[in-house]
Structure formats: structure tokens, C-alpha cells
């Protein structure tokens, strides 16, 4: 469709005219601007909702909201075209078959072996070996080898040595969805473990010998303690209500040597609504500080993040400080349980704070343990009540930790954002379906590519320059401050306002420091080489000259020269007295920024010619110019483009 306008969502004056294309996998908007032809690509999988708004004089507006929090507003001149686009997008954004998803057509031009190698990058049996299993207390069980016991569990589960197949099967019959207690994390220093399951089908008074034996087996696997904690991550009221439906929680009277604990985290419906409310706050035009803070509190979002974190802290403490094993469950053991186990693991084990370790953690506690990616993130069209930002919350917990412990993680914020992006993008096959069983039936590994391999290949972009493996912050357990700590939870504008460039610091400290670090390393290597040569050659002056010129190059490449326009930014609209003046700064191209702010006071409103103005919207050019390699350093998808990268590329 031609002559479509892409509005800057926050400044209604600014818009770009271009052509809209719909392909099998993407929506693409190409600007007419003769030089740049800037493109905006959106994967259909990313589309969360499409809203057709009332036709105005300028055309028919269409608002597209994405799961990665990008919001696009288009104005299509003809109502008929708008309707067609709307209907098409509705269909394209709600695929019915897995084969419609992008991962089945995405082609990064790797051969079969490279694809396989990519999938092998993260190997869970290696991970359990790293933990020290199998050993005297824990073993691998193949009782679920054909998914016969639990179809949402993996084929390989790790259980206490004293848990026989009979006990496992018996216990599984007493657990919701047959998700019996299985090992998530084992601490070899003190034999304490984190196990996970779903709720017992105890109702008001039902008992199951095998299930009780299972919990005893977990306790026995830790000789250092005579009891285990059983943590129910639901609010007490909800858990009690489940009893009426024949489910519920463990009765301390029936299970010997357990200490039962509720840690109330709300359910997926509450979380879905919470996110919705928070996004509404983000969409406010020129909010006051009050509007924002009230709106944020009203959504409850940070309260939920803190609740998940607190649960993780409790469990980590039990394992690290008390040396007591913990069994965690919620209702079905695939949402809150996954969040809480993985947060606890990250606090406990520095390995999970490395890039590879983090991938392994997600693979273990989310992918292998049957978190319902399809239902939660809408790979395919399904029940809207199943949608919930469960893994988003986990990812945010990690970001909050990164803010509190800047040296403790090997990876940076961009790593987290890209992972979140790809959970929804379906460009890779890692997060399809609802279980390992389904993925194997769909032959995901033979037909799609692994995100982990892709991220690993581009790992230079995801490193945290402040991370040092021998730093005190990176070793051992992390101890987030318990109280007071409300103020430590910040609004993650890097994620929820990701595409509003005007909100973020224009200069990325991470990228700058990475560039410095790399340059230093390179220089040190060069110096070593040169030093050796110096020892061999006689003409030392020649060598000195070469070293000097390298240093000059470096400061240019780091973008430190003063003629660098990428440091420039433009003013936003600073007066928000009048509702009709949105006060966000322009997020795309800014040729007319000028007297916007002052027109309300009846000044001449003609825009001065800014083409001679050196202030330019800098976009991600900043980031790419910091890379010593000089070229665009964004992890580029080989064929299809992700929306954020495409937006930045042509600036």
C-alpha cells in the first residue's frame, strides 16, 4: 500500500511517508525519503494487537502493538486499504500451524552440521555433570523416557538415589499434571538441593504413600539437614481454594520432616493485567511525574517483580546459609515455580551469571521442564487467558539484579532484551510448543535454528565490560539487600520504552567500555609482538612510530573526536501545559524540531532551515561507531531483519 504515513507515536507532527508491504513473515514499512529509505520491519509473531482507529481527514489510522513493546502507528489513506491490511494482519498475526512461523523459513545460510552444532551448544547432561551428578545422592532416571509418566517433563529427570521408579510413578499420580518432584539445582558444597513439582492432589484429606516417600527421599539426599522446606509460591487463599477442587498443598502432619511455607506470588491472570496497566502508563502522552508514579504503583508490576525476587532470595538463603533442601511448587509447577527456581539458582551459582550459564539455566528450568511457551507467548493463535508475561518477569528480575550488582554478570542488558525479543519472534526454534515432547514431534531441531548459537556467535555484543571472573562480586552467592529495598526496584525503560530513543542516554557506557577494553587488549597484544620484534631488530625508531599511529587511530575509532555528531541530541518538547503538545522527544529523524515548544505563545511558527544544523538524531550509529571494527556491530540476522535493527540500520 502506498502513501502510508508512519507516525511518530508521541509527536503527532512528525511522520514519515512511505510504502507498506505485507509478506508471509513480516510487515515492512519503507520510507520514501530519497536517500535513506529507512525500513521498519515487524515480524508477524511479534504483533500482539492491532487496533483500527476512527478515520480522520488524513486517513485511516492503524495502531500495531508488539510483544516486544514496540508500538507503530500507521495512517492509511484509503479506508478500504486500511481494512484489507487490518484483516490480513489479524490473520497473519494469529497463525494456526507451526509451519507458518518464521523459524521454519528463516535461512541463515548454515549447513546441516552447523545447525546441529548450534543445537548442541547447550547440553543439559553436561550441566548436571557440572553440578556433580550423578553421585551418591542423586541419579538420572529414565522412567519418563517415552513421556509415559509425565508428558510435560523431559525424558531425562534427576531424582534422589532412594527414589525408585515405583515411588516416582506413584508420586506422579498424586501431582497435578503428573509433575512429580524432580531436581532443579544441586549444591555440591553442602548437598542441599532445589527440587520442583506441581501441587499435590491432596484435597482436604487425601494422602499418597509414594508422594510422601518421594519427599523423604529428597530429605535423605541431604544428610546435612533433618528437614526440607516445601515452598508454595501461591497466595495462601488461592492454595486453599484449590483444595476444594481436589488439589491443594502439603499437610505438615502427613509429610514427615517438612516445614511448609507460602510465598504469595499472584497468578498468570493478575500478571497479565498488571503488565497491561503498566503499558497503558507507558502510552500516556506527556504524563506528569504523578501520573507516572501513580500509574506504575497502580499496575502493581514492581510489587510482583519484588515478590518473585523475595521468593528466590528465601530459597537461596535456605540452600546456601541453612543448608536445607527446598521443594518448590505452585499450581502446575511451570510458571511461578520456574521463575523462582531460576532466580534462586542465579543467586546461588555464579556459573549462571555467565553468558553460557544463563542459556543453560533457561534451557533447564524453562525449556526442559515444560514451560508452556506456546500458550504463554502466543506462538499460535490460542486462548488469550493463557497469555502471561511469565518469562518477561524472570528476565526483569535478572535486570534488577544487574543494576544492583553491576560487576556480577558476564552479560549485559542487551543480551536480556534480545532474548526476550526472540522468545516472541519465533525466528528460532528454541521456544516453540509447550513441552519437549511436542518439540521433538515437530522435529524442531532438524527444521529450525538455535537462538543460543546465534547469540553465542555475536557474544561480543553482549558482554558486560565490568565483569571479571575473579571479582568479588562475581564469586559465590549474591545477597540482595532485603530491607529497606523498595527503592532498589526501578522501572525498566530500556525494555518497556525500548524503541523510544529519546528517553535513553544517548551514549552507551557499556559499548564505550567494551571498546576501550578491546582496544586495550589489542594494544597489549601488539605491544607484546612489537616488544619481541624490538628485541630482534635494530631499528627501534621505526617501531615506535608505528605504535604511535595506532594510538591516534584508536581515539578516532572510539568516537572521541570532537567533530563527532553522534554525541548530538535534540531537545524534546519541554512544555506540557497544553494537552495537545506531546512532550516526548522525537524518535526518528528530526528535521523539524525547532520552535515547536514556543508556538503556543503565539510566536512565529515557521521552522528555521535546519539542514545546516549540526544537531542530528543519532540513532544507533553511536553504538556502531564505538566498535573497533568500525562496521555495524549489531548482531544482524542474516536474512530476515528484526524490527529494532532495521529501524537503526539506515540512519
Amino acid at each position, binding site marked *: 500500500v502506498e502513501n502510508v504515513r508512519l507516525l511518530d507515536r508521541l509527536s503527532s507532527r512528525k511522520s514519515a511517508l512511505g510504502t507498506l508491504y505485507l509478506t508471509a513473515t513480516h510487515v515492512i514499512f519503507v520510507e520514501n525519503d530519497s536517500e535513506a529509505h529507512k525500513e521498519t520491519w515487524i515480524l508477524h509473531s511479534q504483533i500482539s494487537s492491532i487496533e483500527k482507529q476512527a478515520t480522520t481527514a488524513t486517513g485511516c489510522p492503524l495502531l500495531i502493538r508488539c510483544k516486544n513493546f514496540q508500538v507503530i502507528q500507521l495512517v492509511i489513506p484509503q479506508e478500504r486499504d486500511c481494512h484489507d491490511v487490518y484483516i490480513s494482519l489479524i490473520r497473519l498475526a494469529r497463525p494456526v500451524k507451526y509451519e507458518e512461523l518464521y523459524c521454519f523459513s528463516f535461512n541463515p545460510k548454515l549447513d546441516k552440521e552447523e545447525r546441529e552444532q548450534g543445537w548442541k551448544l547447550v547440553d543439559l547432561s553436561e550441566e548436571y555433570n557440572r553440578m556433580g551428578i550423578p553421585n551418591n545422592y542423586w541419579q538420572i532416571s529414565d522412567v519418563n523416557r517415552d513421556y509415559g509418566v509425565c508428558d510435560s517433563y523431559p525424558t531425562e529427570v534427576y531424582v534422589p538415589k532412594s527414589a525408585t521408579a515405583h515411588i516416582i510413578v506413584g508420586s506422579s499420580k498424586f501431582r497435578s499434571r503428573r509433575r512429580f518432584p524432580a531436581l532443579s539445582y544441586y549444591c555440591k558444597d553442602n548437598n542441599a538441593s532445589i527440587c520442583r513439582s506441581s501441587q499435590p492432589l491432596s484435597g482436604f484429606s487425601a494422602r499418597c504413600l509414594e508422594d510422601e516417600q518421594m519427599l523423604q527421599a529428597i530429605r535423605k539426599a541431604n544428610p546435612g539437614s533433618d528437614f526440607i522446606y516445601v515452598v508454595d509460591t501461591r497466595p495462601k487463599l488461592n492454595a486453599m481454594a484449590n483444595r476444594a477442587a481436589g488439589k491443594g498443598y502439603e499437610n505438615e502432619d502427613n509429610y514427615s520432616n517438612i516445614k511448609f511455607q507460602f510465598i504469595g506470588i499472584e497468578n498468570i491472570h493478575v500478571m497479565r493485567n498488571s503488565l497491561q496497566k503498566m503499558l497503558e502508563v507507558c502510552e500516556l502522552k506527556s504524563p506528569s*511525574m504523578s501520573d507516572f508514579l501513580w500509574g506504575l504503583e497502580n499496575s502493581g508490576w514492581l510489587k510482583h517483580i519484588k515478590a518473585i525476587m523475595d521468593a528466590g532470595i528465601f530459597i537461596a538463603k535456605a540452600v546456601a546459609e541453612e543448608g536445607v533442601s527446598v521443594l518448590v511448587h505452585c499450581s502446575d509447577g511451570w510458571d511461578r515455580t520456574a521463575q523462582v527456581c531460576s532466580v534462586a539458582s542465579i543467586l546461588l551459582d555464579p556459573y549462571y551469571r555467565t553468558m553460557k550459564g544463563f542459556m543453560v539455566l533457561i534451557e533447564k528450568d524453562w525449556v526442559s521442564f515444560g514451560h508452556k511457551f506456546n500458550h504463554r507467548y502466543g506462538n499460535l493463535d490460542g486462548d488469550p487467558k493463557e497469555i502471561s508475561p511469565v518469562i518477561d518477569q524472570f528476565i526483569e528480575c535478572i535486570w534488577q539484579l544487574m543494576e544492583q550488582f553491576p560487576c556480577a554478570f558476564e552479560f549485559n542488558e542487551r543480551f536480556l532484551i534480545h532474548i526476550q525479543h526472540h522468545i516472541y519472534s519465533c525466528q528460532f526454534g528454541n521456544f516453540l510448543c509447550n513441552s519437549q515432547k511436542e518439540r521433538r514431534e515437530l522435529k524442531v531441531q532438524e527444521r529450525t535454528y538455535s537462538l543460543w548459537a546465534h547469540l553465542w556467535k555475536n557474544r561480543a555484543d553482549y558482554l558486560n565490560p565490568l565483569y571479571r571472573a575473579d571479582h568479588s562480586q562475581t564469586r559465590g552467592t549474591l545477597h540482595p539487600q532485603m530491607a529497606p529495598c523498595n527503592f*532498589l526496584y526501578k522501572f525498566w525503560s530500556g525494555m518497556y*520504552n525500548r524503541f523510544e530513543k*529519546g528517553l535513553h*542516554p544517548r551514549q552507551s557506557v557499556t559499548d564505550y567500555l567494551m571498546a576501550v577494553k578491546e582496544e586495550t587488549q589489542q594494544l597489549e597484544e601488539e605491544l607484546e609482538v612489537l616488544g619481541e620484534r624490538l628485541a630482534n631488530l635494530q631499528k627501534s625508531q621505526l617501531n615506535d612510530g608505528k605504535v604511535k599511529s595506532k594510538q591516534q587511530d584508536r581515539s578516532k575509532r572510539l568516537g572521541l573526536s570532537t567533530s563527532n555528531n553522534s554525541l548530538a541530541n535534540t531537545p524534546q518538547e519541554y*512544555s506540557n501545559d497544553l494537552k495537545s503538545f506531546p*512532550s*516526548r*522527544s522525537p524518535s526518528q529523524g528530526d528535521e523539524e524540531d525547532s520552535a515547536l515548544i*514556543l508556538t503556543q505563545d503565539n510566536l512565529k511558527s515557521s521552522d528555521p532551515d535546519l539542514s545546516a544544523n549540526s544537531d542530528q538524531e543519532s540513532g544507533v550509529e553511536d553504538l556502531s561507531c564505538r566498535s573497533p571494527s568500525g562496521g555495524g556491530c549489531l548482531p544482524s540476522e542474516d536474512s530476515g531483519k528484526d524490527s529494532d535493527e532495521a529501524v537503526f540500520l539506515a540512519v
Partner: protein
Amino acid sequence: MLRSSQPLTGPNRRRCREDELLLGTVLDEEERGFIIDTRSAQAAKQARMSGGGTEPKAFYPRWRRLHRPLERGRPLQESFIRLVEACNESSISMDRWLSRLESCRWLSHVKAALSTACLAAQCLDREKAKVLVHGAEGTDTTLLVTALAQLILEPSCRTLLGFQGLLEREWIEAGHPFHLRCAHSAYSHARLKQEAPLFLLFLDCVWQLSRQFPFSLEFSEHLLLTLFDSAYASAYGTFLCNSEKERCLCKVKENTHSLWAWLNQPGERKKYLNPLYTHNPLVIWPSVEPQSIQLWQGLFFRWIRSSQYLDEAWAEIQHLVESS
């Protein structure tokens, strides 16, 4: 950019030819100027009853007046006190914290101050127009705006020395009554009439700038915290008294040492430098969206929580930059 106090128009709409002439000569032919009045239009009008007022359009035809009310005086002090109380209360649950923070209004004041400073800067930089800033007395919110605007516009104000010069000019010499404003503190039970944390509000705004432009200020948060302390109590005479006149009378320069002299010693100044600093010749326009304005934890939680991990991070940054 000019600053002054309010014109003494009074209820009878007095005129002053000299004042009109003065402002007239500031403008070039055909040029227009802006007056940024840091009181609300209503407050400015009411000020006439007690002898003050605003510049009537009829007598200052080429000046356009904009009102940007900024909080000052007692309400600002109350806001500060409430915030400090909220920060010290460990029992607030997460679902009440943000509304508690909001009810202190401190962050709203930060947002308003930055917005107004940006407006002044925009008039100068974008409109190439002259600006006159005043409130009532010209000693509080006026200085907040002019000092911040210069930081935004002028790269030389962002160096360690340049910033000291800015403080000397726009706060100390300009006559901000430090002695009255920074008499006690947020913890004091005595609620003094003249006490108000304007200078702290300024430092908070500077901190917001440093967060949004991490490479563009030569000085670090440590300097800002030191200045905050010094305004209230100091071994040095720099922030003493309420005006240059008082400082002369008290012979401050003869009897005390200067804070700047201390800070600028080679051994000392290292502590106040930002390791990421590189000269940025351009104007720095901050975002004043609520998401972009954060609570200054380094100040408000200074004694409440450990800054160990953040300090370690800065040490690491220092190390990386130095070894390069």
C-alpha cells in the same frame, strides 16, 4: 541570558523608564526576548499587592513573558523533609512506596526545574533570542534556572573548574542566601521560615544530567555529594553568609580557606573526576519524561544502604579507562 528580581510594579502599575530602557537596549533591532517568570501567573499578579509584580506588556513590548512556576521556600522544604522521612522508613511495603514517593513531590520539582532550564536554553540556542529569568527575589529559583541552563548549553561549565566557576557566579556571587537556606536540614525539628533546599534541588538536577549524559560532565557524583555537605557545614568559607556584602563584612576571604583551593589540589581532585569524561562541544538536552528522572539514591540512601557494589563498579570503570 539575564537574571534579576521582580519589577516593583505594585498595585498602581508603576513604571520605571530606566528599567524599560535597560531591557530595551539588551535587544537588538527587531529582536524579541523572553521573560521566564518562575512564579505562576496568578502568584505573579498577586505579588503586585505587596509591591511587586510583572513587566506589563505595554511597557516592555518586545518581551514575551512565560510563566513556569517552580516550587520554593516552605513547600520545597516540606517536600524534602517528607522525602527523607519516606526514605528512612523501612516498613513501607512495595505497594505503597511509589505513591509515597509521589506524595513527596520532590521528583516533580526536579522535572519542573529541568524543564524550565531547558526552556531557557531552547530560547537561547534554538530561537537565538535573549532571555531574562526572574522569580520574586531573584535569589532562588532564578539561580536554579540560569545555572542549569548554562550547564545544558555550555561545555565549559561541565568541566571541573568550569563547574566551580558556575557555582561561584550563579549561586555564591549571585547572592543565594546559603546561611538562611541551609541552616539546619531535613532532620531538624525547628522549621525555620527561610530554610529551603534550592541548592540541593540544583545538585539533584545536575545528577540527573550526569546520568543521562554519562560522558559529558568532567566531575563525578562524589563532587555533588561533597557540595551538598559543604552547603550545610564546611571547614571552608566558600558557602558562608548570604551575600558578597556579608562575606566582605565578615572578612571571609581573610579568615577562612576556600573549598575550591582544597578540591583542586592534584591529590584531591582525582576523587572528583568522572573517568568517562570526554569533551562534548554540543548542547546536551535532557529528557524530562518521568521514566528519565530517577530518585538520587546516592544522596537519599547514602547512609541507609551500602553502595559497595556500585563503588566497585566505578572502581572497575576507572581501572578500565586508566589502563587503556
